Structures are given as structure tokens and as C-alpha cells.
């Protein structure tokens, strides 16, 4: 393959001033493209500026790396995707040049001009239809290599790991009518709706309103001027330009992607509208023939846009293939702009292009009359595609109109959903405006504003059905799919649109079928001998246009929760642990030392995130009996009980304690992560099956700061600060609750429980005093050796004590008896959530058990999730928790283990990630530390 040479005489260049031009010649800008400096004017797109400077190749194609130039000169131009600075996949025919932009071509290696991958053209047969399926299947060991090759070759820009995150915004809008498309019909629809008193959001993809009027003749510009004036005078219309309605969802919930917003990179507007008017206009369809992707071959609308909007001459010597009045007008426009029109082929008289030829750029056109015409520009005007996506998303099924050679819809295809403009039919600009205005009024009426209007007639005019010439060419430019591939797919049996689409990947590239779909269907119809109407079409899904991930994400709105004691943790340099929404201290430097402090003296842990629910009402025991697996009717005032909740499938859902504070007052605690779910669970029962129960629920999780004071010296420490509570062991025993004051703070709840296995008290202190009480405890206990401990030390100690953590030592299949909770589950209760499943579980043996495992190799702490192996090497369980115990000086584990091996003394093998197997013995009890519970009850 010859490299593409830099052309001595540019085929394109800048024209003199045009009446509708959008460039500001008084404001020149500088930018670079692939390292070379270029000039642009304010208002230029990257591509218009490069064309004005004589460039004509902007990308390399996806598979064959063919040089590609401008095709449609719109956002959806498949050949103009570039990288701008840190931003990949920028639509170069849409994006306005900003001063200092650093633009580079994508999918080129090593450069746009010398592209070694263009050698793919020589091996095209390997990349034809279905090549993904055929080529990269075998041998399997080569899959990783294939992946590397494909990544290297695939189109796409570069995202740097350190690129700054832009400011992306979200907005909610509530309007009566959204109008998608700001051409003549769309502007008129907005005006018609606003006249009826509707609040209107008018969304236009281009930076300016006007649609095809913008690049039309003087009459079109005059009409556009009038519409703009009317719009400026109208009340109740908000216009978003450079924005696109990307999706329509149930209830006219519409996503609008705003690409340029003052003060933000982009914005996603989520709109709830009473009615939607789709006025998307028509997209010009390319024509399929040999060489139809050469730079210099473009659509008639592209030529009109370049000349009239950007004053760019797209070539010097042109051939025009026209099947419609718009194409004829472009031929005249080019001639008037100084382009020599060497030949005009009238497709209505069966004149056509057989092939376009050239190396790296068009140099000649072979016509159906057998002529070869030298030209550097070939303009085609062979028909239109109706971009009905938003309507399809609303459940509308457009019909294919054979005579018009395009899909069409009615003006009111679905309740609350309207269409106008080219999607509905053809008319003069004035005719489109009249239709749009009436549709706008009717949409307003559907949204409850005004009385509507009489709809004028609008229907499509006849147009020749032109998809493919006598030669094969590209059907899908983004995906490098040719008409030959479509024929091949049909021959191999992929003869329906949905199958052939996936097999060839046609319409699956970045432009998502907007240019390609109807040609794809036309060629498939030809290949299968059916009509497009018979074939049907593929499904249009959101988004209509690509949306950046940044716009979807918006600003970070992740709420984070801190305990009131956080200033202390921060001052102490605690290592933060993210636990759902909470940021908690993992440790303060040395977790083992924190364990020793609690085991030998006294420590404090901040357990504020524990869920806390106040339950008030005489039927609270009935509620507790229903939600917990154990019994609550006999709980005395001042007592605390451990409880486990299961779901209706018997699977352990949450655990915690609940204490009876007074006659009808209970305080329930939940796990930290389960706080929200348990609250909902309680509410659900009280609002449904338990409506008759007299129980009121108040969530107090963040109303209290919670501090666990643990260690043999905890009673001594508390005796210095607690008033109103007798701390003597007989007066305040294990599993009791008292209310009193701590450090002068009244209305604190104290319960005597022990997750760590030591004598300990859990204090629930009004949150505003949390830090004060914490610091008071530290001050009062300095001679006792008091200090803080974090989550890690707590996890070690609870593991030494064999206390399970729901979700860590249980999983989504663990029913209560498989969590070592046999002693707790009371099957003699008449009912509780999950009871039937637990009854059946109790009648079988085959469920995994929770066991404590002691590895015989004292130096190896098997990682959590390590597999357990049986005699035959079969998997018999896994480690759920493991640590080195600083107290016992050997590794300790909890594990889920097959029932037949769960007997104490059984030896199993732990399979380590490094491949070694180490033996471990099933322990007598879950608790390795103080299994009798003497310390807890001290």
C-alpha cells in the first residue's frame, strides 16, 4: 500500500464570505493536528478548518485502515472522529475549534499518512463478514494474543489514567412539551406549543437552530430569520443547542445530553414532559458503489454545509449524482461557488456512478455511461433516512414507504408522542412550519395547555429507491462492512436484519445505523430477494447519540457518614476503613497491641454505625417473636437478648441484641451494614401482616454515639463516670440493660454485652456528647491503661471468641442451623419469619456447618475464601474468616464445612492460593478463647 502523499495542490480551500456562514473571520484561532499548526475561525469545526487548509484525510477505517475524509460533515460523520487533548472520540465535524486545541487522528499507527495497518486491505478476505466468529475461535490458547491484536487495531482514542475529571452536571427539568430537533418544523412546534401556553424545551443537536434552512438558499435564510425573531419574542421556550435528546423512556421521561454548558464540561438533563414532539429531520443516505469511501466522495448535504456554513470549497472539479431537488440545488451551489461541475448524473434517469477511483483521494469517477471523469469531488444525493429512534423508543413502529424509499410515521403515533417535519412527510419550508405549528399546539393540548389545532396534510413525496450501484462498496463506514459482506452473510444463512447485523456488525459502530441502516436493509433485501417492508428493521435503542460516561455519572454525590467521634480518630491518625456509607477507624497503628490492651486492661471502640431502632408499644414482643428466630415474650425489663433474623427462605439476614428499657420500650440493635434493611423489614411487617400490632418504630442509629468499653478494667473505668446505675456484677449482670448518666451526660443507655469476649459495656450516648464522653473515658482511665481499638482488633477478638459475622461467615444460602445457631432457633414457636424452612432444615443433615479450624502449621494464616479439600481432593468448604491470634499465638479460622467432616478432630486440607495444601483440625468449639464465657460474666 502506497502511503498517502501530502497533496501539492489542495483540492479544498476557503471561499469568500457567504450569507449564512457561521464563522467569524475577525476571530482567528490556532490549533494543531497531528503536530502541525493550523488556523481556524471562531465557529469552524475541526474538520471545516482542516478542509479549508487543504487537508482531506481525518481518520483510518476500523478494519482495513483505509484513509477516510468527510462524508456527512455532521456529528454522525463516521470518518471524522479525533482525539482532542485528553478527550478521545471527539466528533471532528461537529466540535468547534477552541484556541490552542491539540488534535490528533485516532486509529492510526504509526501515523495518519503512513499507516502500516493499511496492509489489512490486502488480507481483506480474513476480515470479511463474521470474521470475529471465524478467525478468533481456535486455538483457544491464543485468545489472549487475539485480544491484544484486536485492541491494537480497534478504533478509539486514548484515555490517560491521570486525566482530570471534568465538571459534569445533572439537572432535572419539568416541562409541558419537549421538542427534539430545531429545524423549521421543530421551531414551529415549539412556537405552536408556547402560543398555547405550554412551557417548552426545544433541543437542537447543532450549535444553532435552523436545520437545513441554515445551509439553504436566500429564501431559506429569510424564513429562518423570521422564525428566530418569532422565537425571541415568544414566552415559555427554553432552547438548548449543541444538545441532543438521547433517550425517551416511560411517561415521556427524556434524557437530554447538553454538550456545551457554561461553567461545566457537559450536563445531563432529565426531563419529565407532558408531551414529546420528535422533529429530527432527515439524514442523507450514502450510496453504495466501489470506492464510495474515498476522501472526496461526500453527501450533497455535506457539500452544502461546507460551502454555506463554513465557506469551504470542498473540491475543484466535481461530479454530482442526484436523485432529488436537493441534489440538483447543490450542483448549482457548487458551480456558483467556483467548483467546476464536470458531470451531473441524474439518478432519476438511471444514470449512476459505477466506481470512484484514486489513491488516498478521489481522482476519477466511472459513470454508468462508460465515461471516466477526472474529479476530486463526487457528491451524491440518493435519498434519505428517517431517524425515528426516539419514536421507536416510545413503542412506535415506523412503516417503510416503498414509493418514498424511506420509513415514515404519522404525526400522532402514540399518546403524548408526536412527530413533525421530514419524519412525517415532504413539504416546502413553509409547509413544514405550518405542520410543526399545528403539531406543537396539539402536543400542548395533550399536556393540558390550550385546545389544539387542525393538522394540515403532510405526506412523503415519491423518491427513487437507490441503495447500491452495480458494484460493491461500503455499507457501514464505521465498521468497514461492505455490501459484499452483507451478501455473504445472507448466503451463509444470516438473512434476517437482526442476524445479519450481528454477523457483519453493520450498523453497530459509533453512528449506530443513522447513515447505514437503510442501505444495509436495501442490500440485504437485494441479496435475499425480498423487500425492505418484508424484512422489517432492527431495533433502535437508547442512546440516540453517544453520551459520555462523565455526563451519565454527573458530580460525585456519594454520601459519606462519620461518627461524632471522628475528630479524635483523625487526630490519632486512625487508618480509615470504608464500611458501606461509613468511614470507620480500622486501627490506630498496631491492631495486635489494641487486642492486648483489651484482653489485659481496657479499650474503647467507636461502634456508632450499629443500627439502633427504638420500638415502643405493647405488642413489641409479638413483633420480635415474628422477626427473630428466638423467643421474646419472657424478656424482663432491664434484660438484653441476642437475636437472629432470617428471611422467609430461612437464610440468616441480620443479628443483634434487643433490650427492654421499660414496660413498653425496647431498643433493638442491628449490624452496621444491616441498619437500613432491618428498619425497612420492621416497617414492612408493621405495615402489612402486622398492621394490627401496636408498635411504633423510631430509627436512632445516628441519634446516639455508641462506644463499647471492653476489657477486665472496664467496670472500674465506668465506676468513675457512671451515675444512677449500680455497676456491681449482681446488680448489673451480663445481658442486662440500664439507663443512666455517663460523665454527667444524662439519658445514656448501657448494655452489658461482649462481642470481644471480655467484660464489656456498650454505651449509647446522645450523639452531640459522643466525643465528650469518649474523651472523658480516656481521661478517667489513663491509669488503667485505657486506649482506643479499631475494627481490625475487634474482628480478631470476635474470631478468637468464635462470634460469627452475618455476611462474612454466612452467605446468601446459609440457613440458620448452618450458622451454628441451633441453640437459638425455637421451632416450637407457632410462627416466625422463615420457620417452615428451618423446620425442614432441622429434619435433614446435609447442610454445611460453621466450624472453627486450627491449621496445624502455626506460621500460615490461610487467606479468607481459601478452599477446603477432602480426602479425594474434592471441595468440601471454605475459610470464611481467618487471622493470626495475638492472644493464642496461632492462626484461627472460621469455615463453612460439609456436614460429614464437621465433627471435632477431623482433619481437612486448606488449599492455599500459592498451590500448597496445609492440614487443619476442626476445633471442639467455635470459641478458641474463653469458651466457657467466664470473662464475659465476670
Amino acid at each position, binding site marked *: 500500500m502506497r502511503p498517502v502523499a501530502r497533496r501539492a495542490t489542495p483540492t479544498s480551500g476557503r471561499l469568500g464570505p457567504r450569507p449564512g456562514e457561521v464563522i467569524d473571520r475577525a476571530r482567528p484561532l490556532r490549533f494543531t493536528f497531528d503536530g502541525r499548526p493550523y488556523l481556524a475561525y471562531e465557529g469552524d469545526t475541526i474538520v471545516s478548518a482542516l478542509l479549508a487548509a487543504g487537508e482531506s484525510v481525518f481518520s483510518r477505517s476500523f478494519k482495513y485502515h483505509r484513509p477516510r475524509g468527510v462524508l456527512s460533515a455532521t456529528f454522525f460523520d463516521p470518518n471524522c472522529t479525533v482525539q482532542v487533548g485528553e478527550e478521545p472520540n471527539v466528533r471532528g465535524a461537529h466540535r468547534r475549534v477552541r484556541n490552542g486545541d491539540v488534535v490528533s487522528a485516532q486509529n492510526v499507527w504509526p501515523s495518519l499518512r503512513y499507516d502500516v495497518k493499511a496492509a489489512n486491505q490486502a488480507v481483506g478476505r480474513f476480515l470479511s463478514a463474521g470474521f470475529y466468529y471465524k478467525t478468533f475461535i481456535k486455538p483457544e490458547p491464543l485468545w489472549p494474543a487475539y485480544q491484544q491484536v484486536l485492541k491494537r487495531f480497534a478504533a478509539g482514542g486514548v484515555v490517560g489514567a491521570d486525566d482530570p475529571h471534568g465538571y459534569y452536571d445533572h439537572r432535572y427539568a419539568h416541562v409541558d412539551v419537549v421538542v427534539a430537533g430545531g429545524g423549521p418544523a421543530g421551531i414551529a412546534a415549539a412556537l405552536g406549543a408556547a402560543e398555547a401556553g405550554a412551557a417548552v424545551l426545544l433541543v437542537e443537536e447543532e450549535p444553532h437552530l435552523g436545520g437545513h434552512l441554515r445551509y439553504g438558499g436566500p429564501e431559506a435564510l429569510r424564513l429562518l430569520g423570521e422564525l428566530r425573531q418569532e422565537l425571541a419574542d415568544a414566552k415559555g421556550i427554553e432552547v438548548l443547542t449543541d444538545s441532543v435528546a438521547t433517550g425517551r423512556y416511560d411517561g415521556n421521561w427524556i434524557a437530554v445530553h447538553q454538550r456545551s454548558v457554561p461553567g461545566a464540561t457537559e450536563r445531563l438533563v432529565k426531563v419529565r414532559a407532558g408531551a414529546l414532539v420528535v422533529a429530527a429531520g432527515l439524514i442523507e443516505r450514502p450510496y453504495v458503489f466501489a470506492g464510495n469511501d474515498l476522501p472526496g466522495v461526500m453527501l450533497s448535504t455535506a457539500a452544502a454545509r461546507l460551502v454555506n456554513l463554513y465557506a469551504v470549497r470542498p473540491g475543484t472539479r466535481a461530479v454530482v449524482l442526484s436523485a432529488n431537488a436537493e441534489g440538483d440545488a447543490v450542483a448549482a451551489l457548487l458551480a456558483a461557488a467556483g467548483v467546476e461541475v464536470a458531470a451531473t448524473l441524474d439518478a432519476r434517469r438511471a444514470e449512476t456512478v459505477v466506481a470512484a477511483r484514486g489513491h488516498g483521494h478521489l481522482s476519477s469517477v466511472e459513470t454508468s455511461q462508460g465515461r471516466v471523469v477526472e474529479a476530486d469531488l463526487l457528491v451524491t444525493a440518493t435519498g434519505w433516512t428517517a431517524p425515528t429512534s426516539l419514536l421507536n423508543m416510545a413503542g412506535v413502529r415506523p412503516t417503510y414507504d416503498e414509493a418514498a424509499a424511506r420509513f415514515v410515521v404519522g404525526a400522532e403515533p402514540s399518546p403524548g408522542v408526536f412527530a413533525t417535519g421530514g419524519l412525517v412527510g415532504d413539504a416546502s419550508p413553509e409547509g413544514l412550519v405550518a405542520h410543526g405549528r399545528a403539531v406543537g399546539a396539539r402536543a400542548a393540548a395533550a399536556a393540558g395547555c390550550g385546545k389544539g389545532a387542525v393538522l394540515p396534510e403532510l405526506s412523503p413525496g415519491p423518491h427513487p429507491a437507490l441503495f447500491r450501484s452495480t458494484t460493491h462498496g461500503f455499507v457501514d463506514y464505521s465498521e468497514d462492512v461492505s455490501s459484499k459482506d452483507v451478501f455473504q452473510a445472507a448466503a451463509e444463512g444470516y438473512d434476517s436484519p437482526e442476524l445479519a447485523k450481528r454477523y457483519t456488525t453493520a450498523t453497530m459502530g459509533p453512528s449506530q445505523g443513522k447513515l447505514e441502516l437503510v442501505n444495509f436493509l436495501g442490500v440485504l433485501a437485494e441479496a435475499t430477494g425480498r423487500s425492505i417492508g418484508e424484512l422489517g428493521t432492527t431495533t433502535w435503542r437508547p442512546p440516540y447519540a453517544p453520551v459520555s460516561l462523565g455526563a451519565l455519572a454527573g458530580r460525585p454525590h456519594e454520601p459519606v457518614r462519620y461518627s461524632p467521634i471522628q475528630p479524635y480518630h483523625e487526630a490519632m491518625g486512625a487508618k480509615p476503613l470504608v464500611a458501606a456509607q461509613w468511614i470507620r477507624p480500622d486501627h490506630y497503628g498496631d491492631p495486635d497491641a489494641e487486642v492486648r490492651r483489651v484482653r489485659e486492661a481496657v479499650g474503647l471502640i467507636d461502634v456508632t454505625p450499629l443500627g439502633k431502632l427504638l420500638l415502643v408499644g405493647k405488642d413489641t414482643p409479638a413483633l420480635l417473636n415474628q422477626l427473630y428466630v428466638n423467643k421474646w415474650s419472657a424478656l424482663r425489663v432491664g434484660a438484653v437478648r441476642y437475636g437472629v433474623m432470617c428471611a*422467609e427462605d430461612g437464610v440468616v439476614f441480620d443479628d443483634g441484641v434487643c433490650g427492654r428499657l421499660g414496660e413498653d420500650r425496647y431498643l433493638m440493635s442491628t449490624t452496621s451494614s444491616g441498619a437500613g434493611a432491618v428498619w425497612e423489614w420492621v*416497617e414492612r411487617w408493621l405495615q*402489612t401482616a402486622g*398492621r394490627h400490632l401496636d408498635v411504633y418504630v423510631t430509627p436512632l442509629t445516628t441519634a446516639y454515639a455508641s462506644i463499647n468499653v471492653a476489657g477486665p478494667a472496664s467496670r472500674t473505668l465506668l465506676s468513675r463516670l457512671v451515675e444512677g446505675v449500680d455497676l456491681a456484677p449482681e446488680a448489673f449482670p451480663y445481658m442486662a440493660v440500664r439507663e443512666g448518666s455517663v460523665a454527667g451526660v444524662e439519658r445514656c443507655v448501657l448494655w452489658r454485652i461482649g462481642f470481644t469476649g471480655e467484660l464489656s459495656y456498650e454505651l449509647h450516648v446522645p450523639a452531640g456528647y459522643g466525643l465528650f464522653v469518649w474523651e472523658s473515658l480516656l481521661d478517667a482511665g489513663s491509669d488503667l491503661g485505657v486506649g482506643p481499638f479499631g475494627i481490625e482488633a475487634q474482628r480478631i477478638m470476635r474470631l478468637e471468641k468464635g462470634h460469627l459475622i452475618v455476611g462474612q461467615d454466612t452467605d446468601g444460602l446459609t440457613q440458620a442451623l448452618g450458622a451454628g445457631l441451633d441453640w437459638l432457633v425455637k421451632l416450637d414457636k*407457632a410462627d416466625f419469619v422463615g420457620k*417452615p424452612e428451618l423446620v425442614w432444615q432441622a429434619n435433614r443433615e446435609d447442610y454445611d456447618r460453621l466450624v472453627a479450624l486450627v491449621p496445624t502449621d502455626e506460621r500460615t494464616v490461610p487467606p479468607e475464601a481459601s478452599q477446603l479439600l477432602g480426602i479425594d481432593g474434592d471441595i468440601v468448604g471454605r475459610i470464611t474468616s481467618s487471622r493470626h491470634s495475638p492472644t493464642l499465638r496461632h492462626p484461627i479460622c472460621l469455615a463453612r464445612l460439609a456436614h460429614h467432616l464437621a465433627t471435632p478432630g477431623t482433619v481437612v486440607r486448606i488449599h492455599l492460593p500459592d498451590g500448597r495444601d496445609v492440614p487443619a483440625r476442626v476445633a471442639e468449639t467455635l470459641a478458641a478463647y474463653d469458651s466457657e464465657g467466664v470473662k464475659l460474666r465476670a
Partner: protein
Amino acid sequence: MIQIPCPYCGLRNANEFASTGEVKPRPDVATATPAVWRAYLYDHRNPEGLVTEGWYHRAGCRKFLVVERHTQTNEIRSARPAGVAS
């Protein structure tokens, strides 16, 4: 996004709610066979047509609602507080 007419809060976006699934009577725990109980847990009719389902207004009034919804059109026929006869 569909909207649910909460009897307490008015017409609100569905993403303020959590779906709790099709409303089904809880079998009698004393007599339910495993087949009956597991059908209650895991079998969902999912008809093309009207379903009666639970929605919890999590980001609103925190009420559990019973909603009649058409699965094909998403038309909502009624929405009432759970536990209250229609």
C-alpha cells in the same frame, strides 16, 4: 421511567421506590408443604397484563403500597397503602 401515584406523596418517579414484587398471600406456616412454600418464595406469575405488586416508597413517605400495574404498557390502575382493602 414510570411514575407511581403514591397516595401520600402524589405522582413520583419509580426510582424513589423499591419494588417488593408480586403481592401473594403468605401460606399458613403450620400446614404449608415445601412445594407450596417454595412456590410462594420463588414462583412469580409475571403475566402479560395486570399485576398486583408491592412498592415501598423508600425515598418518600416510607409507606408500603400495593399497586396494580399493566406489565406491557406500565399503565397503573391503582395504588393504595398495603394492608388496606381495595
